[in-house]
């Protein structure tokens, strides 16, 4: 049986078990549910859990283990001369065997007989069935493929049998345990609790996955390119990944120009977002009437809900051309020569649009923090005759400062990790320069450009993306942890 079918059977079986178990419990209690330790549904659930959970576990383990075992057996069965070949060569042969096996499943017995041992005909026959082969199969490959198919068939049958047996056994064993004093609820709740623990560990697993996957791939990269050349290199010139060519090490992977672009664009974005966001937050929390606040705050937060790709498109088609044209006009008026000094794709364009995107982050985070400053501080200051703005500048803001700094750090980490705006608006040239009107590139842009298109996981041109990724992850993680630390510390002061 196919895996989805087995799952379906298990699901139906679970429902049957639930109904049967519930009835049985009620029957044992003589129809009076008050004689049971738990409510009758728990007995049904207990039977259903015993029937399905071990069976599903067996299924998962089998599905993971059996291909590994089968593949290694097939691999061992390869002729000696093939085993003597390189890893990559063997991988290719193995791929051929795999596609052959898949193709021979599609062919009928007569067709296989008709093609016989003629590899070219076999290839043509498979091609007609929609299974293209990379080359003409050799006779030993056909034999291997036959073995593979046979083993997979056996494995599938054995698996189906074992899974169904485990399910039946689980159901039977739990069914006979049903008794009025049996503590079904406690058992079921234990299972639920472990499911809850499992769910919450996914967060940890994700983090471990991020760190491990990127460390492994980045480790492969640092095996090719020395770490100090990456972290302190000032030239980014990865070249193209030439398949099989030994010239791969010719590329230069200097992080510094990318990091400079990232920080520069982030700085411009913060230059826009921080004053606008902070003043909006102050106005909304201290001055605005509840009516204005109830309209303006959600509207400003709409900016945070707009996907970044839309900002990127806005930068690409509206802001960039506008800045370019206006710079040409200014140049024209000043010198009489109409030439633009701002490029359409530039640090300024990307930073400015990113700044607009960040306004709501700054404003809503600082708004919360400013509102959290105790009323008594304000009243004290106002009572001593300070104006509202003086109160804000001299009392509220200093009190809110740690929280605001935390909020700004979180915003900065967003600016550094932002991708789509810079991909569309910052340009791709990795250069180190200080003119904000020229294009620069960022870490995220390079991750995208190194990983789109055809890739092989062996060239440093591809693997460098993971080294960039782990750098990005480390920077944002540090910023966030530091921000969290500041915010937590600040909270303690007033509570």
């Amino acid at each position: 049986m196919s895996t989805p079918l087995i799952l379906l059977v298990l699901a139906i079986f679970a429902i049957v078990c639930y109904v049967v178990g519930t009835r049985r419990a009620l029957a044992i209690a003589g129809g009076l549910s008050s004689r049971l330790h738990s409510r009758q549904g728990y007995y049904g659930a207990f039977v259903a859990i015993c029937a399905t959970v071990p069976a599903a576990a067996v299924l998962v383990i089998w599905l993971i283990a059996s291909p590994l075992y089968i593949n290694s057996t097939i691999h061992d069965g390869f002729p000696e001369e093939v085993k003597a070949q390189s890893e990559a060569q063997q991988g290719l042969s193995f791929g051929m065997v795999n596609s052959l096996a898949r193709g021979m499943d599609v062919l009928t017995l007569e067709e296989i007989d008709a093609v016989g041992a003629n590899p070219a005909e076999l290839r043509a026959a498979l091609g007609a069935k929609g299974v293209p082969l990379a080359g003409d199969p050799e006779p030993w490959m056909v034999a291997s493929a036959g073995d593979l198919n046979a083993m997979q068939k056996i494995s599938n049958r054995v698996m189906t049998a074992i899974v169904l047996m485990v399910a039946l056994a689980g159901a039977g064993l739990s069914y006979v345990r049903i008794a009025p004093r049996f503590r079904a609820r406690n058992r079921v709740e234990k299972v639920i609790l472990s499911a809850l623990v499992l769910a919450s560990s996914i967060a940890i697993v994700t983090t471990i996955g991020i760190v491990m996957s990127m460390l492994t791939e980045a480790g492969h990269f640092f095996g090719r390119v020395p770490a100090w050349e990456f972290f302190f290199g000032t030239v980014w010139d990865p070249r193209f990944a030439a398949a099989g060519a030994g010239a791969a090490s010719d590329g230069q992977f200097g992080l510094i120009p990318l990091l400079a672009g990232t920080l520069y664009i982030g700085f411009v974005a913060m230059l826009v977002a921080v004053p606008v966001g902070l003043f909006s937050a102050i106005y909304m929390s201290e001055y605005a009437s509840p009516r204005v606040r109830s309209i303006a705050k959600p509207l400003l937060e709409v900016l945070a809900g707009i996907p970044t790709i839309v900002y990127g498109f806005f930068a690409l088609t509206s802001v960039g051309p506008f800045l370019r044209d206006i710079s040409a006009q200014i140049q024209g008026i000043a010198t009489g020569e109409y030439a633009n000094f701002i490029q359409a794709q530039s640090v300024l364009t990307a930073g400015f649009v990113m700044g607009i995107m960040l306004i709501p982050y700054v404003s809503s985070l600082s708004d919360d923090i400013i509102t959290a400053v105790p009323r008594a501080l304000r009243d004290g200051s106002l009572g001593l005759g300070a104006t509202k703005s003086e109160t804000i500048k001299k009392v509220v803001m200093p009190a809110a400062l740690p929280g605001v700094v935390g909020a700004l750090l979180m915003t900065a980490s967003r600016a550094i990790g932002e991708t789509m705006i810079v991909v569309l608006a910052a340009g791709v040239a990795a250069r180190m320069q200080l003119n904000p009107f020229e294009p620069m590139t960022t870490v995220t842009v390079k991750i995208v450009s190194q990983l789109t298109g055809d890739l092989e996981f062996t060239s440093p041109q591809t693997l460098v993306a993971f080294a960039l990724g782990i750098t990005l992850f480390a920077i944002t993680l540090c910023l966030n942890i530091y921000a969290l630390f500041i915010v937590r510390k600040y909270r303690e002061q007033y509570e």
Partner: protein
Amino acid sequence: MTDVVSSPAGVLDKPARRDIGIKRRYRAERRFRAYGIAALSFGLLFLALLLWSVVSKGYTAFQQTMITVPVEFSEQIIDKDNERATDPQKLMTANYPIVARNAVAKALGVAENDTAGLRAVNQMISNGVRGQLRDMVVANPQIIGTTQTVSLLAAGDIDSAWKGQINLDVSEDNRKISDQQVGWMKQLAEAGALGKHLNGGIFVNGNSSRPEAAGVGVALIGSFYMMLIVLVLSLPIGVAASIYLEEFAPKNRLTDLIEVNINNLAAVPSIVYGLLGLAVFINFMDLPRSASLVGGLVLTLMTLPTIIIATRAALKAVPPSIRAAALGLGASKMQTIFHHVLPLAMPGILTGTIIGLAHALGETAPLLLIGMVAFVANYPTTPMDPSTALPVQIYMWANEAERAFVERTSGAIIILLLFLIVMNVGAILLRRRFERRW
């Protein structure tokens, strides 16, 4: 207020007051206030500008210029040797663009031997007519030999010109359509043959290199699959995780670590999730590239922290008295939570989930890395098939050079924003309707 220094007359009849600079301070106050208003207006102005620029560029994408002419399905061109009964490929591969070209040429009165004229006519109709006419003929082979009135897709440049997006005042060499074609366009329009129709194609067509035939149909299906996967996986897992952390977890180092971890995961750049998906799901687990399954899994991991944070807030908001009452009546802790606390927290949880989904719907960067930037013209039937997503489609069109694609991109953005608005409004309504203040 009296300023003593500037009005010496006041000194005589009023007791001397120290200059505390009240005017200056009030000016500063007004200035400060003005800064606030300016900042707020700046933000709102750019919100308006952003939306206006998208809508003004994009609303025309929902209209498509069509040329409605009588088309003669000539047997001479489609199936000269009358083979269609024996060879089904014949009808699929027939030269339909010629059929369409001849029809328009006839309507314009271009002679059949005027090669240059015919080529110019051909440039006016989209290559998409091939599929359009083919589908008509395959569905109903009887129409071969008859003449039917058909609305043909106009070429992208004609479409742009008719919508006024191409400046016709520049010299002929510098624009994509010739004076002759402009003349024909006007001629057809006067005859009532050329006009704007509602563009249903943008919703159902797959990607195409020709703007007039390109649509977001495949991307919508891909995005739908992904949202389904995200919802099915992240809602139960997120809720289960939050229940454990909020209600059961002992306060120790480990749960503290999980807490900090979740807060950090919510702030990890989305592109890092793309790298994770590429390394784990595609490279290690060997799942297919460009499949919406992988996209859904990556977006699930990305959405989980958001849902967990929202769910925990919602659980926290349920007052302890509810728990105490249920426990007091003899419910177990598990029963208390699943029968009483969770239902009361549900509106908050769903609101958080919808907002998380909306975020996932607009996410582009991680999908680029797992190969969803593929040119997919066919509908995916399962989540394992190559597909694309709405924001990725926008990204791909944004990189196209043709003028007509700017309009399509904006149109696709409008569709995306409409979905987001519907989801967010839904979340707000849900909150208004069901949220309880304790």
